[in-house]
């Protein structure tokens, strides 16, 4: 088994050995469930619209909460020294931790599949946008976990790491909400930088390489900066 997967497996079992993962995923399900069922019962229509429109914001909050411990905790307890003096690359360490963080968030998303499935049992469901929506959420989650890990390499304090990642995520999420107040040319730029804008594109069911490129660049840049920060810890 590759070292990356070994590290990912260790991190995943660390998540499920502590109450933190259950609390974070549980809270995520609670709120996303509320978003879904409130439209079902209040508006009387079975629709995923409000679920998909607000879940990216939930991820902006919950992904950093999942990612915050990944490196900070090793810095605090000193185990990073134990890990990185074994023959393992910094890239493998970060990649393994990323896979673990993404698995936890993805397992939360997986459970929300209950909502579209419940709709499908009572009526007709257009699966196109649902698949697009989930693909978009997964991409959002990946990028946000990347940002969370990057912030986690910056501090031995998990809370500090969480707040930093939350702030970065919120700014990225807000970009396309403020285009109204700025000149159109700047508005286009902000839109392109916005996490939510690209999500809406994908959730429409149209897969455009520009949207994919956005999430992949965001992820790669964060992971690259995370590796860099790890390396600087040695200097």
């Amino acid at each position: 088994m590759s070292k990356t997967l070994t590290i990912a497996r260790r991190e995943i079992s660390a998540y499920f050995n502590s109450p933190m993962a259950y609390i974070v995923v549980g809270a995520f399900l609670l709120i996303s469930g509320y978003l879904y069922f409130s439209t079902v019962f209040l508006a009387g229509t079975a629709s995923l619209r409000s679920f998909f429109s607000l879940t990216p914001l939930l991820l902006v909050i919950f992904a950093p909460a999942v990612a915050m411990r990944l490196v900070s905790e090793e810095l605090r307890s000193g185990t990073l020294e134990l890990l990185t003096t074994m023959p393992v690359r910094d890239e493998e360490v970060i990649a393994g931790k990323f896979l673990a963080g993404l698995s936890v968030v993805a397992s939360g998303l997986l459970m929300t599949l209950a909502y579209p499935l419940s709709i499908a049992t009572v009526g007709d469901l257009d699966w196109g946008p649902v698949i697009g929506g989930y693909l978009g959420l997964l991409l959002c989650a990946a990028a946000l976990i990347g940002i969370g890990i990057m912030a986690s390499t910056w501090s031995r304090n998990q809370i500090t790491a969480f707040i930093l990642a939350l702030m970065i995520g919120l700014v990225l999420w807000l970009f396309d909400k403020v285009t109204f107040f700025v000149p159109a040319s700047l508005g286009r730029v902000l839109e392109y930088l916005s996490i939510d804008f690209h999500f809406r594109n994908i959730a429409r069911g149209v897969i455009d390489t520009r949207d994919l490129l956005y999430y992949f660049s965001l992820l790669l840049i964060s992971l690259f900066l995370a590796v860099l920060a790890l390396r600087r810890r040695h200097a």
Partner: protein
Amino acid sequence: MDSAMIEVRELVKDYGRTRALRGIDFSVPRGQIVGFLGPNGAGKTTTMKIITGYLEATSGQALVRGLPVEEHPLETRAHIGYLPENAPLYEDMMVQEFLDFVADIRQIPAAQRRQRFRLMTEVCGIGDVLSKNIGELSKGFRQRVGLAHAMIHDPEILILDEPTSGLDPNQIAEIRKLIRELGREKTLILSTHILPEVQATCDRVIIISDGKLVADDTVQGLMTGDGARIQVLVAPRGESPLEMEKVVESLQKPDSVRSVSVVGEKEDGLAVDVLSDAAVDARRDIFEAAIAADLALLEMQRQSVSLEETFRRLTMEDGGEHV
């Protein structure tokens, strides 16, 4: 061919504005056990972290089996087993889980695992705690798990930062025995504050103080290089009471005696320490000198200077400013 397993050259390390290492040089051949001594903050841990590749030197180089650590991090780490100071461990894992994890990262072939695990369980005495959470272990057991982690891949080089700290006397004795056994084929550097440990286990002692190397010698060399001490108890032979100056003066006469100092007055006489050159036995000369000065020699005992004294002299010399 370079036969040194570990070599450091002009190692300098700055932490921000603090200079922790000010040019350290030494090399360790295969099969040697080196005791790494120095007062708190001397730079022992820093040197070890550079050799294991956790920290980069500000200038200078560390080589493991002839390879510079910075350019060949993976190859050099594969040959090293490292126990960091205070044995940081994944507290959320069980001991067995943790060792499995280490074996996976170290890519120990499946065929050898069983035997390596059995050996580690035995020599580190962790058989009873394999299914315990590391977070719940006592300090000594954590230390043992850390040792198992360092040795599980049967490395050629072991770097142990205060390996016996927190262990009980039985375990200390066992670890020392283990270190001596390992030292037959492996290369070891171990830091410690327990000087008898060095005497018991090490072939060679490196003492650093304030980031500089102040001694690099065998244990024997360090203890005798400084001369031998002879404890003497003298009393007057006649009625007249002892005069301290006279005693000191007369015992100082022989050529083999370097210095004489009065330790204190006892009920039955005067206790005096006589320092002599290491190479000669000054006891005869002292005996003759005492007779000549009309002194009764009640007791005389020759001792080599303890490692502790040498350590104190070497590390407190230049002001010994410690943090």
